[in-house]
Each structure stands twice: as C-alpha cells, then as structure tokens.
C-alpha cells in the first residue's frame, strides 16, 4: 500500500515537473513574442543549442580601437552617448547591430559598409557587448 502510494507520488512528481517546465517555456515564448512586437528587438540568429562564448580580449581591444576611430565622435569615447545614443546594455541582437553599422540609419547615422568589413564589425560588436550595463 505504502509502495503504491510512493509510486503514484513519483508519477505525479514527474508530471508536475514537466508541467512546470512546459509552463515556463510557454511563458518565455509568449514574452519573447510580445517583446518582438513592441520593440525593435530581433530574435537571435544562433541556434538555441549553440553555446556562445565570451569574445576574446584581443577582439574586444580591437573593437575598442575601431570604435574610437569610427564611432566615438558621435557616441562618446566611452560609448555613453553624445550626439548619438548611449550604447551600453543594448537589448538588440548582434545581427541588428551589424545591420545598423553596415546600412546606417537614414538621416541619423552614415553607413560604414565601405569602411568596415565583417571582421571589423564582429570586433565592434564584441566591444559593445563588453560594455558594463547600467
């Protein structure tokens, strides 16, 4: 009798665990969909199973150099904003940042497609991601 009760409790526990995780995943999906509708945030392009690694310090340093040459006169030397906006704690995807750098923003920011190649843009993104939030 006791064993039957414990086995039934185990089945209920597995069910409750799966329900809780499923509910959390559903809530996450709903929140992501809402965020995508109400902001300019783009969904990440990386597959969910890919484990992103922190950018190497050398790439961040190179990004900082490129930033000082191309971006600092509008965004400030510490990227905290001047003529252009503060770039700390960007809530946009890497793809969005790369697209903004290459295409520019009409009437606000020039295109840097001719000045910076893909490697430069990756370094710039690495530098922007390394900026402390807040």
């Amino acid at each position, binding site marked *: 009798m*006791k*064993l039957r*009760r*414990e086995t*039934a*409790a*185990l089945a*209920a*526990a*597995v069910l*409750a*665990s*799966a329900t*809780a*995780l499923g509910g*959390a*995943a559903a*809530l*996450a*999906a*709903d*929140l*992501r*969909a*809402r*965020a995508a509708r109400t902001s300019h*945030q783009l969904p*990440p392009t*990386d597959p*969910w199973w890919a*484990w*992103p690694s*922190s950018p190497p310090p050398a790439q961040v340093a190179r990004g900082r150099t490129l930033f000082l040459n191309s971006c600092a006169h509008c965004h400030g030397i510490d990227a905290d904003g001047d003529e252009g906006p503060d770039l700390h704690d960007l*809530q946009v995807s890497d793809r969005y940042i790369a697209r903004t750098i290459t295409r520019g923003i009409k009437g606000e920011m020039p295109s840097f497609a001719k000045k910076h190649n893909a490697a430069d843009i990756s370094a710039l993104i690495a530098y922007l*991601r390394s900026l*402390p*939030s*807040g």
Partner: protein
Amino acid sequence: MSELVWAKMHGAVVHFPVALSLCSAALDAAGFVLGTRPVARELHRGGRFAMVAGTLGSAGAVISGLLMTKGDWLGHGLLRWHHAFAWPAFGLLVGLATWRVLAGAQPARRALGCYLVCAWIAAGLVMATGYWGGELLIRSSGP
C-alpha cells in the same frame, strides 16, 4: 511594468530557494540519520515544509526572471551559465516537492534515501544557479 521592478523582485525571491532547498536537505538528512527517534519525525516535517516553501520561491524566481529578461530562457554568456543550472534545479524542485507532499509524512526508508540524494542534487543545482546569478550581478556592475 518596467524590467527594473521584475529585477528587484527577482533579487528578492531568489534567496528563498537557495536557503530553503539547502535547509530542507539538511533537515531531512539529520532526520534520516536519527532514524526512528521522535525528533526525526519533526526534522522530516521541517524538511518537507522547507522543500515546499523553497519550491514556491523558485516559481517566483523563475517567473520574475523571465519577465525581467523578456522571456530570454537561455541568453548568452553568464546568463547562459545561470540558466544551465536554473532549469534543471527548477524542474527537480517541483518534482521533489510534489513527491514529498503526496508520499505522506513517513515514506519508506529506501524511498526517503533516494529522495535525499535528489534533494542534495537539487540544492547543489540551486546553489550553482545562485553563484552564476551573483557573477552576472558583479561582472555587469563592476568597473
């Protein structure tokens, strides 16, 4: 509501699962060692209460965390590490609390032994989640 409110709420509730899951595992372990002595029953009762309360706290932490990050259930960098431990910990805590409530006040010793192993694993996962959460906070507000 702004993400700042959810961030504050997340910071407030995460301490409940950290403290209570560890407390629950410790109380149940003590009760398990003491066997049939009267105090063991009280220790198991405390362990059961702490597990249920810790799990409720973990649900609050998960919900506020998802609201704070706009549904980013994996993230990147340190957040990915935080989540790598958070999801297994949450699933395990919910399962353990459910089993503990439904299995009655005095489950069989062997079943309780298996439960205890899982409870310590859950406590370890919760602590690892807390560690990476702390790293997120320290490194993102550091110099």
